[in-house]
């Protein structure tokens, strides 16, 4: 748990035409921690993630990565920094096996020939490093995997490239109880291995089970970013639905349609 965050965003603004989706958003992700990003539908979670991963350019604001100011203009920039996103719909090819999926688009080659042994070895090491023991063979097609196993492959794919920040978009949304536990365990292990993990989730149980910090978005504003131990379940729900909870969140009018007053600088609460 380092003092300075691995990734820090300050004053991010983002509009699509006349609609301002993100308003002066600050956000931090620490190495070795799971930061849960919560918020209702339309609060701007996905947009924020897409800004971080370089899919959307931001209108204003600064990115600080590892203490250095950076600009992220494309997914390639993000990947070069070691930022990987695991999307909700997984983006795996059913007709390819686990190794082939993990290296898709970044195959190891010797000459023009695919270097299968090296790829298989690296995949096995990555999965072993994550203590994944649930797949029978690295050469089975992804189609034959359960939802949890598929999510595991997608996450392993993201950490294969010495990534430093992994963003998971609702990794447990489609999973059963046992598989959810499996994936959450993996998420925790990523952070314990020293990565910064951002977990987007609607499920408060998941959030409280694995996260170290919770960042709540409400109508495009970051209303709170606090340690998970300092907040209760119901307070988070209030932050998500009303943008405020007691001393946390927006001050003034509930709904916070005006600009948030300066003293509610996100992340500065407590």
């Amino acid at each position, binding site marked *: 748990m380092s003092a300075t965050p691995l990734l820090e965003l300050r004053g991010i603004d983002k509009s699509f035409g006349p609609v301002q989706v993100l308003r002066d958003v600050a956000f931090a992700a620490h190495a070795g921690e799971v930061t849960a990003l919560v918020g209702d539908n339309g609060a701007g979670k996905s947009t924020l993630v897409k800004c971080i991963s370089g899919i959307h350019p931001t209108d204003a604001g600064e990115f600080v990565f590892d203490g250095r100011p950076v600009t992220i203009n494309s997914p390639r920039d993000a990947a070069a920094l070691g930022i990987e996103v695991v999307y909700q719909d997984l983006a795996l090819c059913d007709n390819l096996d*686990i190794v082939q999926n993990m290296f898709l688009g970044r195959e190891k080659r010797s000459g023009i020939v695919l270097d299968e042994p090296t790829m298989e070895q690296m995949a096995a090491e990555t999965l072993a490093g994550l203590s994944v023991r649930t797949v029978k063979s690295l050469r089975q097609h992804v189609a034959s995997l359960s939802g949890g196993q598929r999510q595991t492959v997608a996450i392993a794919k993201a950490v294969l490239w010495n990534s430093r920040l992994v963003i998971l978009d609702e990794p447990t949304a489609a999973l059963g109880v046992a598989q959810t536990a499996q994936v959450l365990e993996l998420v925790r292990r990523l952070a314990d291995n020293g990565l910064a993990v951002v977990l987007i989730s609607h499920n408060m149980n998941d959030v409280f089970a694995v996260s170290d910090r919770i960042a709540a978005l409400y109508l495009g504003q970051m209303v709170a970013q606090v340690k998970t131990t300092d907040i209760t379940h119901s307070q988070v729900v209030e932050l998500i639905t009303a943008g405020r909870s007691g001393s946390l969140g927006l001050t003034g009018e509930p709904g916070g349609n005006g600009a948030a007053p300066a003293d509610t600088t996100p992340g500065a609460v407590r």
Partner: protein
Amino acid sequence: MTAIVVKKEGPAGVTPTPTVGSHVNNYWRRVRGGDIGALPAVVMLVALAVGFSIARPSFFTAGNLANLFTQGAAVTLIAMGLVFVLLLGEIDLSAGFASGVCAAILANVVTVLGYPWYVAVLSAVVTGVVIGTVLGLLVAKVGIPSFVVTLAGFLAFQGVVLTLMDEGANIAVRDDVLVAIANRNLSPVLGWSLAAVAVAGYAAVQLLRHRNRAARGLLTDPIAVVAARIAGLAVILGVAVYVLNLERSRNVLVVSLKGVPIVVPIIAILLVVWTFVLQRTSYGRHIYAVGGNAEAARRAGINVDRIRISVFIICSSMAAIGGIVAASRANSVDPNTGGSNVLLYAVGAAVIGGTSLFGGKGRVLDAVLGGAVVAVIDNGMGLMGYSSGVKFVVTGVVLLAAATIDALSRRRAAATGTR
């Protein structure tokens, strides 16, 4: 299928060392799970061969076997190209007449303009590349469904062939080299040497891979399975070369007729080259990826449009080669070259061989196996004295049966979770 197996030790993915038994078990489980691959084609091929041999003993002769290869060659070559398009879940209905256009170009260049054979072959293949590029651009960049683009091509190319043929006349192809492709044979010694080289090459690749994987501590197929594969290839090639090297001339005093038809090694080389491209290069991997999940491929940084255009280029170029072989076999090109049943036989060959119409699944070998089935049906029913009408109906039914197997196995696979 999705059982979660907890291992006590060892890295992920390490299962007990496979044995011959587990290998056979795995294969059987995959088949039952709906991943049947080329099994129907092989079964059908054996059944048809046995059936026709009993009904017409003349089917099972060296002469007829050689005929089978030359009869099926053009369709098989076109089907090999179609596999690439089918892998993306697309279709190329214009491949038949594209081969006709390329054959017409070939005939015009070599006979009418009098250029040497290699110029003619080159211009035919270049024509194929151009056709494929246009089709691919229309599908990938403009976004027209490939079915419509290539249906338009089917009609238009038919007209192009007619125009190139001067409204119906046919052009003879008499160049020695071109005629030799489908009408001459390798000397018996050369046939044996090529077979030996093929088996040795296959053995070297298999054994090297086995040793390489074993040296890195990765799972390997049991050496017995590897040896069985090599032996299997050696037996198949050995028997084929032996039979084709038998004298099959009706009157040996007039002319000796024996040896492997030249078109066979041509198909074999293209089979090896395209299989290498699909299985061992990242380009081939990307074709499967785009066919399996185009969005995933796009997110992985694969240029999906470029892959899409390239498969149409490969398909039309292979159609050009098919057209050259057809022109060679007929010693001429007429307005119906590549027409009538050629396209459907080619699509049928690919699908019967186990290439999925839904994309993402298929091998170039499928086209060869399926092409053999189509050729055997065509040839055998001809020997039995059935009319073209009956042959068309039977081939149509077989194609439908293959597509049904494809669709059902897909459903079966979805139910059992193997696909």
